[in-house]
């Protein structure tokens, strides 16, 4: 009796540092180093001078911080004959990004709206084909698109590239909007129809205001996707001075001529990665939600 009273009751309290916990946290920390290391290396390398880099420890923090590599990467680095740095590619990317994102979100949201609330005979078939198309390797469709763009007189131009991004961004974004709109109660839709609202009125006045989060998610996917694109940029832009930032970055860093300036290269790499990184760290949970929504299909 006394034994039972003095003995422990309830669940066994967990020790803060049990053997299991040490294993769990230890593993996580080690793995976290592997993931964090490249970002750290990029930052410290871009802040060192070349003599310090040649001394050879890429993990050491800079003894003397210099922002010269950043200035050079942004404004002076050369690709071919152009020596005005990555700023050129940056602005090209911005000029590609803005229309691509705005138009593709508009088109995809309306398409998703059709597929969830205004289905017509065959709409699901087209949608299935669109989704299957998302799995076809891009290489298969590259050349036919060259022909289409050439016929339209847009091959090699930024507008042509925007159209390509519109087409290839369509499956994922349409899916996203369709699934989200499908969760809007049907009664709402019916009530609006009874009140005489038409196709566009329901979309603008009812569906859009209810769906702000999914517009943000779609925007995150599109901005990172288009900014990070390399394949389409290199295929559909014919002249180096219109190359998007990723293509120009690759040309700067992997150019065979001249002495390799690793600090400038890392500053340039970091500059190119900055836009998606800022979006990632600023959007937090919405980014995760976006990729989860994009990944778990069906």
């Amino acid at each position, binding site marked *: 009796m006394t034994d039972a009273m003095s003995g422990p009751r309830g669940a066994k309290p967990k020790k803060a540092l049990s053997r299991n916990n040490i294993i*769990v*946290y230890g*593993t*996580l920390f080690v793995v976290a180093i*592997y*993931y964090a290391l*490249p970002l750290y*290396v*990029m930052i410290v390398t871009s802040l060192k001078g070349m003599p310090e880099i*040649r001394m*050879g420890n*890429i*993990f050491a923090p800079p003894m003397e911080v210099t922002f010269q590599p950043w200035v050079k990467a942004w404004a002076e680095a050369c690709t071919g004959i152009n020596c005005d740095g990555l700023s050129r590619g940056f602005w090209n990317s911005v000029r590609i990004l803005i229309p691509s994102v705005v138009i593709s979100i508009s088109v995809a949201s309306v*398409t998703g*709206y*059709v597929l969830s609330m*205004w*289905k*017509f*005979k065959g709409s699901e078939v*087209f*949608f299935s*084909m*669109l989704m299957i*198309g998302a*799995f076809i*390797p891009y*290489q*298969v*469709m*590259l*050349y*036919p*698109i060259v022909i289409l763009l050439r016929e339209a007189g847009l091959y090699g131009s930024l507008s042509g590239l925007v159209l390509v991004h519109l087409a290839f961004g*369509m499956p994922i974004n349409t899916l996203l909007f369709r699934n989200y709109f499908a969760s809007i109660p049907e009664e709402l839709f019916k009530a609006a129809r009874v009140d005489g609202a038409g196709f*566009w009125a329901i979309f603008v006045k009812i569906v859009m205001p209810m769906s702000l989060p999914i517009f943000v998610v779609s925007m995150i996917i599109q901005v*990172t996707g288009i*900014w*990070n694109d*390399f394949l389409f940029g290199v*295929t559909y832009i014919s002249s180096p001075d219109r190359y998007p930032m*990723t293509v120009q*970055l*690759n040309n700067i*860093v*992997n150019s065979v001529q001249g002495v390799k300036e*690793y600090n400038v290269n*890392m500053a340039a*790499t970091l500059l*190119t990665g900055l836009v*998606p990184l800022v*979006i*990632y*760290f600023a959007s937090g949970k919405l*980014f*995760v939600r976006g*990729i989860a929504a994009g*990944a*778990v299909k*069906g």
Partner: protein
Amino acid sequence: MAIADTGSTDRQLAAGARRPNRLFKNLNSKIAAIPMIFVAMVVFLGGTCWTIFYSFTKSGLLPNTNFVGLDQYERLWSSRKWMVSIENLGIYGFFSLIGTLVIGFTLAALLDRKIRGEGAFRTIFLYPFALSFIVTGLVWQWILNPELGLQNVVREWGWTSFTFDPLNNPDIVMFGLLIAGLWQGTGLIMCIMLAGLRGIDEDIWKAARVDGIGTVKTYVRIIIPMMRPVFVTSLVLIGSGIVKLYDLVVAQTSGGPGISSEVPAKYVMTAMFGGQNLGQGFAASTMMLLMVGIILIPWAYLEFGGKKRG
């Protein structure tokens, strides 16, 4: 899902039959669907058929309809560069698949142990996924630099015989790419796995504990089999990503040293836009399509074929 769809189409069919002008019913929605129809039919379906069709021709600098049967495919499979590409894709694909699944699941399981700082860890594991393959490739090219990178640092720490120079060594160059690829892509799979783990009923864990089954055993015997759909989704994602492998190679190794890290997607690009050899490019990209089909068709069959009952 499938049943609901058929139901609504039936209703629309019935409604359409009553009215004479069926094409104009829902006209706005049909107009709004034009971009989707164009992309699906012209770009995706049309483009694919076009490429397959022209892969049987002798197209060189420009596409032509000079049919040569399977010549392009014969040349393709007797080209050493293509064979190296396929072999590389096999090595990369195998290790990437296993690595991503194991690392992704392990990290998700560790994060699911109700630990402190979960958000911080998740943020660190996932940020590489926001970066492009070009950025990924260039960073790892620098870290793996044989003279000034990781190898040099470890040697300075005292392990003077340490050798790890994948970017200079044709035998292990694919593993240099693999390190970068895993760094970029595992965060995504971890996120998907974590979502799957969170969807598992807490009672399962309680029941396992009552029966005295250990944590690891519970994961292997109970949780993983329950997460089959999540694993299948991951598999499809990783698989279709592997076939697309291109940017990373261009940025990190440019296919070198020599041709030791060539991949099929790069072969296609070189043939089409570098070598004025369109026919080879078309044949090679058709083979890529075939590979994706081999991954995808069994999945589509399992996913949609078996779900007919709803």
